[in-house]
C-alpha cells in the first residue's frame, strides 16, 4: 500500500515570499490533515478536511495560510507571505477510520526554512 506522499521534501525561502506544499493521501482516505511541527514540539493541527470540505481550521493563520483539497483527494497548503516563525516541518496525514479503529498515516513532511 502506498503511503502519504508529500513534496517538496525541503524548501528554503526568504521572508515575505510565498510557498506551497503538496500532499497526496492514501487512496480511499476521506480525512486529510495538515500539521505544523516546530522543532522540539509536537505536531500542531492547522486544518482538517473531510473529503473536500473543511472540518476544522480554527488554528490556521488565515491571514497568510490557505489550504484546499479540490476533488477530495490531493491537497495543497500555501503560505503567503512567509514569516521567520513559519520555519517548521509541515506534515500531511490521512486517516484510516472504520468503526472504532482509527489510525493516522503521516507523510515524511516538508521542512521549511524561512530566512
Amino acid at each position, binding site marked *: 500500500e502506498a503511503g502519504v506522499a508529500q513534496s517538496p521534501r525541503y524548501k528554503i525561502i526568504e521572508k515575505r515570499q510565498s510557498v506551497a506544499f503538496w500532499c497526496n493521501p492514501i487512496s480511499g482516505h476521506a480525512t486529510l490533515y495538515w500539521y505544523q511541527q516546530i522543532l522540539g514540539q509536537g505536531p500542531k493541527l492547522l486544518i*482538517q478536511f473531510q473529503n473536500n470540505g473543511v472540518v476544522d481550521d480554527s488554528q490556521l493563520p488565515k491571514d497568510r495560510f490557505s489550504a484546499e483539497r479540490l476533488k477530495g483527494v490531493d491537497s495543497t497548503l500555501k503560505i503567503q507571505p512567509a514569516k521567520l516563525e513559519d520555519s517548521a516541518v509541515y506534515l500531511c496525514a490521512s486517516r484510516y477510520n472504520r468503526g472504532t479503529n*482509527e*489510525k*493516522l498515516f*503521516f507523510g*515524511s513532511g516538508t521542512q521549511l526554512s524561512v530566512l
Partner: protein
Amino acid sequence: LAKTTQPISMDSYEGQEVNITCSHNNIATNDYITWYQQFPSQGPRFIIQGYKTKVTNEVASLFIPADRKSSTLSLPRVSLSDTAVYYCLVGDPSGYSTLTFGKGTMLLVSP
C-alpha cells in the same frame, strides 16, 4: 478535547522494559487512546490503540485501568532503534475528532 500529560523524557538501556504513562483525566466515554512514535525527520507512526483493559500487538502493550484516566505504553526489551518521541492521543474515532498532539515523551535508549 481530553488533554494529555506525559513525562518530557525517559532514559533506558537496551534489553530493558520501558513503561511510559499518560494522564488524561477528562477522557470522554467515546474516546479511545492512541500512541504514536516519531523518529527524527519522519512523520509520526501509529503504534497501538485501545479503549480499556489491555491491548497487545507485535510492537507494544497498552494498559488502561478501569477509570481510564491514564494509560501506560509498555515497550518490551527496547533496543537502540526505539529511541524516539512517543505521543499519547485521546479522541473519538467515530466522529470527526480533532486529534491533538502534546509534547510527547523523548525516550533515549543507551547501550
